[in-house]
């Protein structure tokens, strides 16, 4: 467990490209940034800017990258070991696609425990379900019997059950109703404080990012062009013209809330 303030995740010159030869597209272009332990780091940008690809590369889902990814100041290779996987977990965008349709909630939560050889499995499953606001009654449910918000809670429980230090969030609430979004955001905030987690979150919704994150980076066409604080985002203070345009486009029309577009 890292002390707050130490560097926990770092990328150096990260490059991800898809396609070959003439079709090659560089989706993440020479991105270098650091996240400190206990921070909540947000990545914003328009669709296609590469923020999700960057997140997936950090997660270890995309082994085809150039540059380095460092975890707790040690470089991790493209083939990761179980300890590295245990350290970083991810919550995905679509609650309707992130749970295996044929597996009960209990199976989904037990599996990571079995893979990592953890003990007291049944207790941990109960604790995980309680921590996300569901009860033991949800153990034997199938995903198709759950609402979007409930599925996302199960996904969060599954991510946290093996006690990671870093949680990657890929637009975790954009597919949810606003009322459910509020509950999930509150849950994420509580869990972070309780467990001292580090968050790296991707979102296109500035108000959500400002609510949950304390540091924000702007991406444009694969490049990380600016980093700023949450306060800067709230007040539309940016150095780069693109960032300023982005903040302004999302600015409230009149009342103060940015549009909650899905």
């Amino acid at each position: 467990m890292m002390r707050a303030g130490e560097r926990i995740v770092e990328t150096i010159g990260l490059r991800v490209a898809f396609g070959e030869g003439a079709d090659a597209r560089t989706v993440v272009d020479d991105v270098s940034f650091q996240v400190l332990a206990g921070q909540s780091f947000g990545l914003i940008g328009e669709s296609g800017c590469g923020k999700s690809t960057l997140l997936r590369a950090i997660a270890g889902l995309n082994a085809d990258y150039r540059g380095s990814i460092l975890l707790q100041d040690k470089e991790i290779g493209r083939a990761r070991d179980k300890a590295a996987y245990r350290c970083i977990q991810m919550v995905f965008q679509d609650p309707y696609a992130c749970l295996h349709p044929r597996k009960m909630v209990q199976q989904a939560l037990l599996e990571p425990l079995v893979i990592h050889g953890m003990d007291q499995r049944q207790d941990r499953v109960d604790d995980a379900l309680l921590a996300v606001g569901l009860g033991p009654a949800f153990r034997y449910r199938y995903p198709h019997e759950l609402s979007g918000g409930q599925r996302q809670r199960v996904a969060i429980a599954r991510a946290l059950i093996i006690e990671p230090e870093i949680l990657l969030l890929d637009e975790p609430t954009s597919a949810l109703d606003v009322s459910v979004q509020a509950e999930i955001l509150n849950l994420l905030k509580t869990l972070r404080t309780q467990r001292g987690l580090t968050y790296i979150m991707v979102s296109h919704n500035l108000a959500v990012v400002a609510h949950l994150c304390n540091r924000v980076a702007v991406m444009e066409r694969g490049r990380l062009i600016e980093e700023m604080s949450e306060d800067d985002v709230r007040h539309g203070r940016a150095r780069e013209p693109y960032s300023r345009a982005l903040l302004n486009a999302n600015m409230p029309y009149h009342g103060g809330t940015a549009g909650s577009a899905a």
Partner: protein
Amino acid sequence: MADTLLEVEGLNVRFESARQSHHAVRGVSFAIGRQKVGIVGESGSGKSLTGRAIMKLAPKAARIEAGKINFDGIDLLAASERRMRAIRGNRISMILQDPKFSLNPLMRIGNQITEAYRLHHRANAAQARAKALQMLESVDIRDPERVFRQYPHEVSGGMGQRVMIAMMLIPEPDLIVADEPTSALDATVQRQVLRILDDLVTRRGAGLLFISHDLNLVADFCDRVLVMYAGQILEDIPARELRHARHPYTRALLDCLPRLDRKVDTLATVSRDPAWLLPVQPAGGVLA
């Protein structure tokens, strides 16, 4: 404003299955003139189903009952499928959420637009092409010739949605039903598309039924807002008064959003009061 274009009274939609009956739309009544009316609700509130029931495009399993569904004097409830086909796409147009799914992926964009045009107008290929290019220009597409030749997957989401709007507006409909037209778009593109929609609707004096889950977007864009919950309309107010809405559900929806201008520790959540479920208005019944 003024003259009523669409009048709906006591619309009820039920889904019957072997074991249970799901009452998806409960006694919905409203009237639209040549104005922009937004229907806002969360998933499951019945807003999309209301729009589709009006156009008789609801799923086959849905049973629709209503006291009245009148469009410009035509009784849509009693209209035959043949009559509906003449009205749909001609006098009432529909714009859907994701152009990826509503444009034919195997046809070039230009061909789809000309086909839409020739369905309702007698024209030869050259005339149809000229009209299509004109429509593409009217939705702010700067290089209509190039877009005409492209396939849907080759254009961005925002462009695809503008193409959809162009297609839907060719027959110059009197009423447009837009079901989450900007939900799949980025904020910048959203504004662009809304501006185009606004322009076209106001200039042509058409009515717009804008269905969305985004309360603030609708409040800023539309003239009137209907808030739906569990199949019922809880509130029907002018858009500029939305921020002073009185119904606790609307207030809760407004309050639970994170705001850039106000930092809170915990977001307000919506606690659903069972008392909000009003007794259902029967088909043909009067407001209780």
